[in-house]
């Protein structure tokens, strides 16, 4: 009796939790380490934008434990860009998304700043983007 109920419970909970695996091509440990190292140090070249980036974005988008796409990790940003476009990502920033608060934790950013910050994070040093 109990196993059957537990099975039903497991099924119910699994369905409820929408457990779904995403099929991404594997990434080597070296590639991953390089992306993390780059994310930890890169900042926009424009000084005003860099100050906003360091203040508002870096803490989460340079922290591999955080779950936010890493700054410069083109592979993580591409599906997001394809699915939502810059406008969609801008809306997520303005309205907040999961752990990211509304206005992306940048109380004084304007729309241009947000667009530039998204563009900076979605590209890498090799000029790859989206």
């Amino acid at each position, binding site marked *: 009796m109990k196993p059957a109920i537990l099975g039903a419970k497991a099924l119910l909970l699994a369905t409820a939790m929408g457990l779904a695996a995403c099929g991404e091509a594997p990434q080597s440990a070296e590639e991953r380490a390089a992306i993390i190292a780059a994310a930890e140090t890169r900042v926009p070249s424009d000084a005003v934008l860099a100050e906003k980036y360091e203040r508002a974005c870096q803490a989460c988008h340079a922290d591999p434990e955080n779950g936010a796409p890493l700054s410069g990790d083109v592979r993580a940003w591409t599906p997001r860009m394809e699915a939502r476009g810059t406008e969609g990502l801008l809306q997520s920033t303005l309205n907040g998304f999961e752990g990211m608060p509304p206005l992306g*934790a940048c*109380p004084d950013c304007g729309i241009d700043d947000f667009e530039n910050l998204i563009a900076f994070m979605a590209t890498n040093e090799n000029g790859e983007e989206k």
Partner: protein
Amino acid sequence: MSLSRREMMMQGAAVAALATGKPFSAFAETPAKTQEQRIKWQNWSGGQSCLPEARLAPATAAEVAEIIATSTKPIRPVGTGHSFTALVPTDGTIMSLDRLSGVLETNDETMEATVGAGSKLGDLGAPLEEKGQALINMPDINRQTLAGSISTSTHGTGENFGSLSSYVTGLELVSAAGETIWCDKDQQPDLFQAARVSLGSLGIITKIRLQNRTPHRINKRTWVVPFDEMMEQADTFAAENRNFEFYYIPFSSMCMGISHNETDEPLAPSSAEDDDGVMTLKALADYLGWAPSLREYFIRSALEDLPEETFVDTSWKVYPSDRNVRFNEMEYHLPRENALAALKEIRTLVEGENIDLFFPWEFRYVKSDDIWLSPFQGRESCSIAIHRYYEEDYKPLFSAVEPILQKHGGRPHWGKLHTLKAPDFATLYPNWNDFLTVRQAMDPDGVFLNDHLREVFGLA
């Protein structure tokens, strides 16, 4: 299928640069923006929003004063927008102290630290530890700013620990007249009594001096207890542990206790938490809302399978959790002797009427203090918090529960949803008029008053 203890909880989901010398760029932008050009500000839950004329982040107290003198009124200070009440919304200017943050000064003898008011709690742990200090207690999350936290008397749990405001030993603010004023128990004592919990209504707080302690390690334990047993034992758990709180998971008859105790055991950090627990409860509510007993069976049997869990880490890493599933919240602080009875009454109401609800309720202990607008003033308290998923209308649930919290003498958390008005506060707070006198003297023209504050202070 195993649900981790943390999953069942209501979790959901850098030290900012010190003054950089860069001007508050957006401020220079005149003329006034049209409605279309403005960017919407909203709080964490999305329940409060506005279209301010300006959103500014000054980098010095002098810039704060300049903004107060010249920017569109009303001017509302903002932290990270984690309050649920309409404390921040304004058509005028929203001012963030994001650029006035970080640990500025420490005193090894008194164990005090002066920090920039815009510091996020999560950005204080590491730099304080470097200076041989740690916060005495912390709330559930660490995303709020220190100024925002003390302004609403943000609290953690523990019968021997007051809210964060009770650890403030001095603060600096820039007044409506543009003056920079320091206050503590000896200098401007009335202002100090008022400013430690002041809803951003007296001025812009720029620096805060905090009573801290030495860094310490905490052993965190979570365990499951049936509701009736918890009602019998909660006070004993509170007395036996440094910090104790519990959650009740509606429609389960089960509670989850959480204790924190100081330890020198070796570090044993928690494994990564995942965010699905509360959404699982939501799914159970969606599927089985029509059959409460079945839902109770599922949740209870899942909880009963959970082993007790402990981990050990540095205090500032243990206290906060992530909250990635958004919600709206009502929390009242009740005289301790009434609180368990109130909780039982709420359970009877919600489960008796099968009110659709899945977020766990939180029950915490807070020590009394003497701050004029602190909801903990003059009484040992327990806090009861009820949450509503952000996409759901919270009003029917909150208006059903609020009378029970009020009947038992509750005072609402200033940052969490409630329907009380000035006459209610005048009854609940012995120093209400003292506060109003200081507010009138500090801001006679209402530079810092928005609609919500006018209503709260009876100036509407």
